């Protein structure tokens, strides 16, 4: 009896320790994925950024792969334009909607809208792109551009920005709502008890308290918008020129990779240049993540993103 107890006991402890080792190994390996991806992209793109100065690569307009000239400015400018337009459109709408849902909306409305936002988050990007081509591009071509007195094919920065704006909405709303909900009720009560109106309370107390979280939500939305590929690629025109206005076509970095990688490998250094583009995207995302993490400093909200 005693000996059987001892063997069972020894086996249980062995299983526990073995499990610990295995889990540790999995954690370490999965943590290395980031290093491996970054390292792979860095070293495989070395032919491009090894000789040239990073600044000149990023700031040059000359993109002639067959002549070995790789200037990324048109693509970086395209990415910044599209992302910027998307954020300008999405952020006010998202903040207003989130504030309404948390502060004003009756319970049934808040709970009824949540699944709708989930649906919006679930629609695949190729479907967003299709919708953009079917609805947004003609809208820009036939109504928006003429209204501003310019002519446009419709495949433009503004079209990309509008599609992208819809795509980042669910993420920003979700995280902003979490942030607002975490503002303690006592804080609102304290302000109301001083005779402030509901709106004054929201404006001066709630949003002030929630500001870091809301900024982080926007930064994370920005980082999502930065890397969106297929939907933007389908509506943005893909012309490798530095754009002059929002009705011009543009060529964002992700679209550059998606359109060319895997096919044009016969041109020397082309694949290195495209992996360099991927490396830029990775670094930007890393930067945004660090920034938002510093803002939130360890609170739980960041993971609510992309839901």
């Amino acid at each position, binding site marked *: 009896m005693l000996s059987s107890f001892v063997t*069972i006991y020894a086996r249980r402890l062995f299983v526990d320790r073995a499990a610990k080792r295995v889990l540790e190994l999995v954690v370490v390996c999965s943590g290395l994925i980031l290093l491996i991806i970054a390292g792979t992209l860095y070293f495989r793109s070395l032919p491009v950024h090894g000789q040239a100065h990073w600044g000149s690569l990023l700031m040059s307009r000359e993109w002639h792969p067959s002549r070995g000239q790789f200037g990324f400015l048109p693509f970086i400018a395209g990415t910044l334009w599209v992302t910027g337009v998307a954020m300008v459109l999405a952020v006010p709408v998202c903040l207003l909607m989130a504030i309404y849902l948390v502060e004003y909306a009756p319970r049934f409305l808040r709970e009824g809208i949540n699944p709708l936002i989930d649906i919006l988050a679930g629609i695949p990007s190729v479907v967003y792109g299709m919708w953009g081509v079917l609805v947004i591009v003609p809208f820009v071509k036939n109504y928006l551009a003429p209204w501003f007195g310019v002519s446009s094919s419709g495949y433009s920065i503004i079209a990309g920005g509008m599609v992208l704006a819809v795509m980042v909405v669910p993420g920003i709303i979700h995280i902003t709502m979490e942030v607002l909900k975490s503002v303690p009720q006592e804080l609102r009560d304290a302000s109301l008890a001083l005779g402030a109106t509901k709106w004054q309370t929201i404006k001066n107390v709630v949003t002030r308290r929630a500001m870091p979280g809301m900024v982080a939500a926007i930064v994370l939305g920005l980082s999502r918008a930065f890397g969106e590929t297929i939907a933007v690629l389908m509506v943005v025109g893909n012309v490798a020129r530095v754009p002059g206005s929002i009705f011009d076509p543009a060529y964002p970095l992700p679209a550059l990779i998606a359109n060319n990688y895997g096919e044009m490998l016969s041109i020397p250094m082309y694949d290195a240049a495209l992996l360099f583009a991927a490396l830029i995207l990775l670094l930007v995302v890393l930067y945004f993540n660090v920034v938002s993490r510093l803002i939130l400093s360890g609170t739980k909200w960041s993971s609510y993103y992309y839901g």
Partner: protein
Amino acid sequence: MTGIPPHISVRDLNVFYGKDHALKDISVDIPNKKITAIIGPSGCGKTTLLKSFNRLLERADNVKVTGQVLVDGEDIYDPKMEITHIRKKMGLLSQKPYPLPMSIYDNIAYGPRIHGEQNKKKLDKIVEHFLKTASLWEEVKDKLHGPAARLSVGQQQRLCLARGLAVGPEIILGDEPTSALDPKSSQHIEKRFIELKERYTIIVVTHILRQAKRLADYVLFLYMGRLIEHGPAQAIFENPQQEMTKEYIFGVIS
């Protein structure tokens, strides 16, 4: 105390949470087969002391423990000590009952199973026996395979008691085990404790003085992390030696 060495004796125990010195130089022997109550105002370290007895403290962050807790003569803070072994000797009742996420039957059988009991008939017997000990059998015998989470809070706490007893402990630790319960259920638990003290050493943290008076044979009074006074219940309640104990027992500090 008589010739039998105490189950638990504490020697110069200090506990730090980061810089916070939660328990200071505690030394005490807990008498066997009696109910010992740990009393004191909230935040005085009662629960910390209780959890130090089966090393549940170490789940928290940057906890540092110095000194010794001897259980059956073995120092449980000895790095060589395997803790599951110690914990099996003690049943734990927490403030709020936490049934495991499984059926009533599986809750009781969980402990015996992990300790190697596979025989279905024996398990059936164990489950029935300990549910009866916790006087829960009559209420649940028809829904043994229903979820434990659906029981009332009072029933859940008795289930937790039965679950703790089923691993065959010698000691029962209760961390304000009645604080989440209604008066009727509390009475139920207190009655069980009085029945059980013939066979088990019971240690209960409580902030309810009347409960301590009803239950305890032996009392430890803690204040600000120090063990101010300890002794047989009657002596402490009727004739406390320390000024602080007097003030607490007669309601000046709380």
